[in-house]
């Protein structure tokens, strides 16, 4: 594992190629170590303050070495992921991109819903990051709609993390004011804990699953802002209790918004598209505000420059 950028152990692939290339460091004391890196364009890694490559030799015995001492750490276990997520979020904000992290069990109909969404948003720039343990079948399905997509294969991993997504974002070459849809690995447990830099997590529950999934997998439903209740065209054939499902979701997350959708019948898709358009408008407005703020600041600085003697 690369201890510098937190890369995995070489099993993560983006569009079929390793996310990282190895490179080797020679330390001041002559020892070498190699680690995997993929310095894609513009993506420099977070080198913490302590990461010089002049490691003090371990045999530099300080007085009292051998005695036990306590070291305060007080850091979040996910600190590294959160730092990458923050960077992703900044990149997205600078470019007015609205990003969603779509999470669900396998088979909830995420990819079908995404394909339909891309088709209905014709004229709007949309890009997709697909996460699966293996295969690029989902990215292929998205590309068939005409939208750019990259596939992340997590190998043994059960979720996407912010570092993988940062690399995938570079490969996509995201457009200004575009929509970025990140389809996480089908898993209702682990992706809840990993911030990718998205504006919202959207959890998809299909009516062919149990109504009680929100209380069985509460972390995910608590982390999401929106629940899409999918495959509602099948309701006449099932005993699924919609009100009970929404009730369970609100027990876990009183503020969760719910939209009933069906990619097949088209139910609820207008409301879903409105949610996306509102998000895109908000991302654009926030970018514009930043740009306007910077312009004002530049104008102020120019005035100051003109006043001061050469």
């Amino acid at each position, binding site marked *: 594992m690369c201890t510098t950028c937190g890369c995995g152990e070489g099993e993560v692939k983006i569009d079929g190629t390793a996310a990282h290339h190895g490179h080797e460091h020679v330390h001041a004391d002559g020892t070498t170590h190699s680690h995997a890196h993929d310095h894609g364009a513009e993506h420099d890694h977070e080198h913490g303050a302590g*990461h010089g490559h002049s490691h003090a030799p371990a045999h530099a015995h300080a007085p009292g070495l051998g005695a*036990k*001492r*306590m070291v*305060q750490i007080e850091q979040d276990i996910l600190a590294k992921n959160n730092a990458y997520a923050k960077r992703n979020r900044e990149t997205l904000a600078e470019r007015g991109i609205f990003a969603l992290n779509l999470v669900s069990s396998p088979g909830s109909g995420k990819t079908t819903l995404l394909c339909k969404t891309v088709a209905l948003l014709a004229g709007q720039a949309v890009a997709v990051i697909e996460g699966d343990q293996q295969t690029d079948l989902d990215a292929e399905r998205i590309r068939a709609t005409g939208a750019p997509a990259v596939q992340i294969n997590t190998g043994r991993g059960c979720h996407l*993390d912010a570092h993988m997504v940062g690399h995938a974002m570079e490969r996509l070459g995201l457009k200004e004011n575009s929509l970025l849809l990140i389809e996480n690995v089908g898993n209702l447990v682990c992706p809840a*804990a990993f911030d990718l830099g998205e504006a919202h997590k959207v959890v998809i529950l299909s009516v062919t699953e149990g109504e009680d999934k929100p209380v069985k997998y509460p972390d995910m439903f608590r982390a999401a802002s929106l629940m899409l209740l999918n495959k509602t065209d099948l309701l006449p054939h099932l005993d699924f209790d919609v009100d009970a499902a929404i009730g369970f979701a609100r027990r876990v997350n*009183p503020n969760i918004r719910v939209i009933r959708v069906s990619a097949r019948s088209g139910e609820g898709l207008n409301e879903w598209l409105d949610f996306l358009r509102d998000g895109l408008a908000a991302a654009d407005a926030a970018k514009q505000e930043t740009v306007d703020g910077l312009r004002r600041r530049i104008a102020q600085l120019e005035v100051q420059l003109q006043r001061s003697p050469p």
Partner: protein
Amino acid sequence: MHEMSLAEGVLQLIEDAARKQDFSKVSTVWLEIGRLAAVEVESMRFCFEAVARGSIAEGAKLEIIATAGSGRCTQCSASVVLSEPFGACPQCGSYQVQVTGGTEMRVKELEVV
């Protein structure tokens, strides 16, 4: 499964600290894990032992400080003790309870040599 990623995260924080604070062996690691954090403690121990093998934390003892889950009822403002990330308010029966504590996942301190 994600306990493996979390264990790797713990080891990274330890290795970063070792570079900054110049120590070469860790004997005990104190983790603060909230009862509502999505972490299975036994799985965490198993994964940490596996990822620490061959590192400066090999064989280190993992001490887990479990912090209680707490919430606040948005209907009647009562403070609620939670053993799951959701629950009914004991005062008014509402499920409008927001989690306020117990989701921590932190490396607190290390005993090092």
